[in-house]
């Protein structure tokens, strides 16, 4: 039986895991039909032209772990942002770990989706928001049909969450061939503010595939900063689907740091429904060997007087493959728009590849849209200049790459996180210079 059929029949078989009186019963049923119709994406589809999932979609894959697996704090402590206090919503092999988490219901809800789905008091939020911005493509539908767990954040109006929220999914590797389906729902009401850090982290070298869906609703004048750290093990693959709906005067920013993993696909969509909304998406991709990172962004400008700003930097070594597919879609009502998209790439090796494809579809007549894409190599003259001043080749290369990515690093608003990412980059480049650009 093919994987698709296997999943569909397992949905029927485990129908009992879904509370048939639950608030999302109908949504799940619609989703599995949608998955049945669309299936897994293939290279035939334009949006997946440069990223093939075939090698990951093995027939042995299973969505449900057979047992609960625990991890020791000492083994995973290093993956948390430990120099500042944070809220933590932590999952181990798809199951909530109360031991590693620090949640709250004090004025805001920072807890788990399974709890929100099972308690009546959350029903209005679930009914208003769950699956209301995620599209019904194959991968999102698969997640909607099967997702049981994830983070649930509800920040009521005028609330500012005083410390960052870390959403971390650990994978132990005790059971192989798992396809995890985490699902996050984040509702930030009017004039509220939250910072979120998300991480998927495999703890062994066993293969794992994660198909994650995150829906974020940003109310009027609300502000959400979201940081994705993708520095996973060599056999871990991630399909990340993040969908953001913005109301007027809201600000939403997503930073994606892709330093590891086997295959990473980021589907990042912004939908601007209110005037003066501002969307920011920045990324640094730094990969080697045969790693593959695909950034597929969409900004859908629906309301007038909005802005969007994209800045993606990529450095590719060995036989690494990068994809940047950035689409800006401007409705005819979205006048006075200011959209900017930049994608700069450095290929360190002759065998590395970047497929860059900016797409602008503009139906309004009074807008400012600019985009730029560069693909180059490290500047040899700059390298000689630095070496002639006593900076060794490896360090000089690293310094040039830091300088190249500096714009994006500078825009990280959590200083401890910035430090952490700086360290990750230094580690990745095997240098010990404490750059402080």
């Amino acid at each position: 039986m093919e994987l698709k059929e296997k999943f569909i029949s397992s949905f029927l078989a485990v129908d009992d895991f879904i509370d048939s009186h639950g608030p999302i019963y109908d949504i799940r049923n619609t989703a599995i039909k949608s998955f049945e119709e669309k299936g897994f994406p293939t290279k035939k589809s334009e949006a997946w032209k440069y990223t093939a999932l075939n090698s990951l979609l093995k027939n042995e894959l299973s969505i449900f772990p057979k047992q609960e697996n625990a991890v020791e704090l000492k083994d995973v402590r290093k993956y948390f942002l430990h120099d500042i206090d944070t809220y933590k919503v932590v999952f181990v092999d798809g199951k909530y770990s109360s031991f590693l988490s620090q949640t709250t219901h004090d004025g805001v809800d920072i807890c788990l989706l399974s709890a929100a789905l099972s308690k009546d008091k959350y029903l209005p939020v679930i009914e208003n928001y769950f699956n209301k911005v995620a599209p019904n493509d194959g991968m999102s539908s698969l997640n909607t049909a099967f997702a049981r767990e994830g983070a649930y954040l509800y920040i009521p109006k005028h609330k500012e969450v005083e410390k960052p929220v870390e959403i971390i999914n650990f994978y132990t590797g005790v059971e192989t061939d798992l396809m995890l389906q985490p699902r996050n729902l984040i509702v930030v009401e009017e004039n509220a503010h939250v910072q979120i850090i998300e991480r998927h982290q495999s703890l062994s070298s066993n293969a794992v595939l994660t198909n994650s869906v995150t829906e974020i609703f940003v109310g009027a004048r609300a502000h959400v900063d979201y940081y994705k750290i993708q520095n996973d093990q060599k056999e871990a693959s991630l399909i990340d689907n993040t969908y953001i709906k913005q109301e007027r005067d809201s600000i939403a920013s997503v930073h994606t740091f892709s330093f590891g993993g086997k295959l990473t696909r980021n589907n990042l969509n912004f939908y601007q429904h209110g005037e003066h909304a501002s969307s920011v998406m920045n990324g640094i991709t730094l990969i080697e060997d045969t790693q593959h990172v695909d950034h597929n962004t969409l900004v859908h400008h629906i309301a007038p007087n909005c802005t969007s700003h994209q800045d993606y930097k990529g450095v590719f070594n060995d036989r690494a493959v990068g994809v940047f597919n950035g689409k800006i879609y401007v409705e005819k009502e979205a006048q006075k728009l200011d959209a900017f998209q930049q994608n700069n790439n450095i290929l360190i090796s002759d065998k590395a590849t970047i497929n860059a494809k900016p797409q602008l579809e503009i139906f309004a007549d009074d807008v400012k849209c600019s985009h730029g894409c560069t693909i180059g190599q490290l500047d040899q003259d700059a390298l000689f200049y630095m070496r002639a001043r006593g900076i060794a080749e490896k360090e000089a290369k690293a310094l040039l790459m830091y300088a190249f990515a500096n714009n994006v690093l500078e825009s990280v608003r959590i200083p401890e996180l910035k430090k952490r990412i700086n360290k990750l980059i230094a580690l990745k480049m095997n240098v010990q210079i404490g750059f402080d650009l």
Partner: protein
Amino acid sequence: MLAIKNLHAGVEEKEILKGINLEVNPGEIHAIMGPNGAGKSTFASIIAGKEDFEVSQGQILLEGEDLADLAPEERAHKGVFLSFQYPVEIPGVTVTNFIKTAINETRKAQGLEDMPAGEMLKKIKDVAELLDIDRKFLSRSLNEGFSGGEKKRNEIFQMAMLDPKLAILDETDSGLDIDALKIVANGVNKLRSKDNAVIVITHYQRLLDYIVPDFVHVLMDGKIVKSGTKELALELESKGYDWIKEELN
């Protein structure tokens, strides 16, 4: 300090330097002059270790040690400094952080600890004053958007910070107005000592009014064809290079 013996070098099949001999002693200033395309900048780059050029014959000895197998950074660690004719722009790295990194990497190679932050700051402040450099300039990205004069002054700033044994100034005077030229020359003169040496590469005699050389060499077609004292520079200024060509024929 520096001894260059029968140096032949070039790119692929093309020989650019065709047998250069030069001896520079501590405390000396040597000027190398010559027409465009004579090989002056190539000569400077080869001493600094640029890998685009291949040395086919001869030796470059610094305090008796052959530099042939040393990388550019290793030569820098041993005290060679090249002031670039065209300093490279490095957006995202400030002047201050670049020089800090350069100094501490050099100290690391010499087995020393990082320079203490206070000492570093004081040195930066002193050198910036010496060269009449605005402090704001130090927090700008290295050479990015600098005028020609600012780039050259920044080169001399780095030279003063790194305190090299052998400084090679490649066309440091180009792009400088007379006031900037005086400041740069004044800086170089203040850094002179009996232990270091300077090679000034220039087209024009003008700079040599301010940095007075002990010896002047004429480089033509990859060879030093004439050497003399500072009077030779004046003669070149008034008569050009054709008379030397004629003398050679």
